[in-house]
């Protein structure tokens, strides 16, 4: 009995030491992680918003638009709402990915940026480049957001070859965001 108790205490002590060690490191790193995240989001938001000012972001979870994580209105210089900034979550080849997008009220895309992702370097990772999102820019209102290789020009289709899963992941969430913004405009 005494032996069991001793063994238990040793195991408990090891767990306690390890957990407090982790807690200490967490208290040091957590603020920095949050700050990094916020800075990255802000930078991406600035890059995609086309000169409009993003308002306060609200976290949402909508059953019809599962990809949309957060919505912020974009205001023009005169104070009118000119569009929406959306944080979209989807999945690519390497796991989950986050896309920051901005749309005009008619649902056409102003700009988009892939932020968090685990795509393969040299293939899916290409989507982080600015030229990648040019495939979608301006589309969404009259022309639908391309979601398959057949919707793309030949040169664009060549650029995404080898990374179709990434393309599918990104294009489907961008289309969802566009549909959402269009529905907002109709209300």
């Amino acid at each position, binding site marked *: 009995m005494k032996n069991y108790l001793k063994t238990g205490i040793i195991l408990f002590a*090891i767990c306690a030491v390890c957990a407090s060690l982790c807690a200490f490191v967490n208290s040091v790193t957590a603020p920095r992680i949050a700050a*990094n995240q916020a800075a990255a989001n802000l930078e991406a938001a600035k890059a995609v918003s086309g000169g409009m000012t993003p308002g306060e972001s609200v976290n949402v979870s909508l059953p019809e638009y599962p990809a949309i994580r957060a919505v912020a209105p974009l205001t023009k210089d005169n104070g009118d709402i000119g569009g929406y900034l959306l944080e979209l979550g989807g999945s690519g080849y390497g796991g989950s990915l986050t896309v920051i997008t901005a749309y005009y009220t008619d649902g056409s895309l102003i700009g988009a940026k892939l932020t968090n992702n685990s795509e393969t*370097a040299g293939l899916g990772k290409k989507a982080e480049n600015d030229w990648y999102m040019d495939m979608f820019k301006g589309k969404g209102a009259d022309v639908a957001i391309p979601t398959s290789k057949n919707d793309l020009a030949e040169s664009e289709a060549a650029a995404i070859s080898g990374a179709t899963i990434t393309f599918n992941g990104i294009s489907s969430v961008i289309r969802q965001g566009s549909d959402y913004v269009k529905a907002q405009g109709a209300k």
Partner: protein
Amino acid sequence: MNTKELTKGIFKENPIFIIMLGMCPTLAVSTQVWNAIGMGAGVIFVLLGSNIFISLLKNIIPDSIRIPSYIVIIASFVTILEMVMHAFMVDLYNALGIYLSLIVVNCIILGRAEAFANKNSVLDSALDAIGMGVGFTLGLTLIAAIREIFGAGTITLINLGDINVVFEVPGLSESPIRVLALSAGALLVMGYLKAFFTWYTAKNEKKAKEAK
């Protein structure tokens, strides 16, 4: 100082090519040289931490709770690594993704704890950890270099957001052999490399025999 403990992991007992441990991160993150270096550094950190810790505690931990204690210690070091990397090297953290957490179940680390650190002195355990970790890193980097050069036509030595060192291989970067960057390529490269090592070892043994 026993240099044998340091050098054995690099070639003679190389964890990847000779004892075949820690396969899943090896194949999954070897798409870029920088990822391989990052993963290797992570494994060295965890291996060094756990080996030293376990070697220090080898007389305190009763045999019956050996494995759970080792697992807790290893998992703590992995958690610390994850948090530090998330805070200071976000790009690398994202690129390694889930495979960073999976260092916990990397057989190399538990294997070294079980086979070496709980029997040897702290210094020897630390040397063993560095040797094995460097051996792992070199093997991983070799696979990554082959896959990146042929699969993407580039060599990414450093990729820290602000500081980038990327070489482009002329000719290959325009039309790389993409399959090598995909999962199938990892398995093929690993198979051929292992065959090469088998052939090489056999050749050396034969030579040694003839010399006798």
